């Protein structure tokens, strides 16, 4: 998906093409405003483009490190304002350095004056950062389209893993002669799960829908595990309208069932909580199973969690948080907090 399949040298071609009109523009500017002949204006503009572009690489790096936040944050603007000022000053000094080297003595040619000079630097910064984020957005749209396609299959795989689907089917088959009504109920629950898994197209769903899905899943696991699985929930009614990525809570709950309840001989209690806190939807799934090393989970986790983390990054930029901690006296606690977007993207 990245530029891996394009030869590296070709990456510079659009960059050069992008700077070419800027060079022409500045040459014309120097000729008309400062009455410079083109023989002097063109190399001067070229030197200034060169320094601006070289420093621009750092700006480009910054746009990679600092993703566009969803929702928008003032902090983001503040960081860029600071960096823009820094860029303008650095550009000015860099040009001075080159002039000094050319003349063999310290020279700081401020041309039209320090303020217009610095404003031009800020203008360069905004242009470079803007192109960077535009690229990110295009890349992100492509990535989301790909992730969506993959997550449909992945969601299928996630929910339909043999350990779950075949065991659930076995439960239904075994219930038929023993408890026909129970078998019908379990079949309906399973069908509901499969239908949601196959038909869910949305990236973000209301917690209400996700919770209904998770409850159906837990109903089937409840039949399978019997007394070994105890589920308690504390879902704040105010949080039910909040949006979250589809199957996000399911991933956390399924993880707890697979890694805490399944390997435990003794009953395992899951505590699933959701609340709205300062514009953030806070979800948590805690278990009292054998537990795991939170640091290790932060570094690398199973496919379900990894896919969730990828989706969070693309849907929320850096604004969503997925955290692991140990649950006293033993077990694991996973917390997911998601900023709530204004409800207009329906």
């Amino acid at each position, binding site marked *: 998906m990245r530029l891996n399949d394009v030869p590296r040298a070709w990456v510079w071609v659009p960059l050069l093409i992008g700077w070419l009109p800027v060079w022409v523009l500045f040459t014309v500017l120097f000729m008309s405003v400062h009455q410079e002949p083109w023989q002097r204006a063109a190399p001067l503009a070229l030197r200034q483009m060169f320094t601006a572009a070289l420093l621009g690489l750092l700006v480009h790096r910054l746009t990679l490190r600092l993703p566009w936040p969803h929702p928008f944050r003032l902090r983001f603007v503040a960081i860029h304002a600071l960096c823009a000022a820094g860029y303008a000053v650095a550009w000015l000094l860099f040009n001075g350095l080159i002039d000094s080297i050319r003349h063999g003595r310290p020279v700081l040619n401020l041309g039209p004056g320090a303020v217009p000079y610095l404003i031009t630097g800020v203008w360069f910064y905004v242009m470079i950062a803007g192109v960077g984020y535009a690229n990110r957005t295009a890349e992100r749209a492509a990535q989301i389209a790909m992730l969506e396609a993959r997550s449909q299959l992945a969601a299928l795989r996630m929910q339909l893993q*043999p*350990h779950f*689907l*075949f*065991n659930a*089917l*076995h*439960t*239904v*088959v*075994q*219930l038929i*002669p*023993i408890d026909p009504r129970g078998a019908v109920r379990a079949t309906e629950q399973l069908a509901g799960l499969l239908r949601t898994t196959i038909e869910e197209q949305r990236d973000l769903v209301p917690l209400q829908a996700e919770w209904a899905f998770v409850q159906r899943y837990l109903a089937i696991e409840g*039949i*399978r*595990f*019997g*007394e*070994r699985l105890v589920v308690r929930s504390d879902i704040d009614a105010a949080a039910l309208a909040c949006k979250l990525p589809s199957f996000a809570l399911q991933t956390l709950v399924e993880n707890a069932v697979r890694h805490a309840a*399944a*390997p*435990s*001989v003794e009953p395992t209690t899951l505590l699933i909580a959701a609340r709205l806190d300062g514009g953030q939807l806070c979800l948590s799934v805690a278990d009292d199973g054998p537990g795991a090393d939170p640091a290790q989970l932060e570094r690398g986790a199973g496919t379900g969690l990894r896919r969730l983390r990828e989706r969070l990054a693309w849907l929320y930029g850096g604004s969503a948080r997925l955290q692991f901690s140990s649950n006293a006296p033993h077990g694991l606690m996973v917390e997911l907090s998601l900023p709530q977007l204004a409800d207009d993207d329906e």
Partner: protein
Amino acid sequence: MTMSEDARVSVLIVDDEPVARAGLRHMLAEVDWVACIGEAGNGLAAVEMINRLRPELVFLDIQMPGLLGTELLAHLLHRPLVVFTTAHAEHAVAAFEIGALDYLLKPFGPERLAATLDRVRAVIGEPLAPALERFGEALGPGPISRLFVRSGRAIVPVPVDGIAWIEAVGDYLALHVGAATHLLSLSLNRLEARLDPQRFVRIHRTHIVNLDHVTAFRRQDGGGLVAELRDGTVLAVSRSKAQELRNWAR
């Protein structure tokens, strides 16, 4: 016909899912020649119960808390026949490598279970379902412990220990067990090959006798040898077999 409790094949069910255990127990209840003697819900409990109850057959789930079904076998003092039950197809090769009799992929119902039970019968008894003839031969020389006799729609297990003698009658065999006689569609040669030769001796073209039930071999006035059984039956011994027996007696 009544069946003594201990003639049935004893079965232990090991699965961490209560519904899976209940379902299997329910299906096995329909099979009259097996007796379910217990259930275990995890690997550690299973090891304890198998060592204590010594079942002949264990239905063993693989993915279980405590101990995986495949790991559990290493801890057994008593080695029963093992049928794995699991939703995971990928363990099948390993399961057969460690000597599983069969591998039931969940979900399964009574029909698939019946095929497994045919295999169980093939290992511990005769006769075999036609599809299992070759399977039975592959099992090697291990003597069988039971014969499975049809009675109406039921299959009745008959422990070989209780059989006094076996008589070929046309295409059938008559098993003489106490006062009862069971008919079985099987050749005397085939049955002889699968019985313990230390106890079951072919004394005649048409007779096999259980030495545990013989009180004496006696020479008759006419020079022929007869076997006298506990229940008073007197059976003729063929001349060639009489010679073999005399060699034994030395």
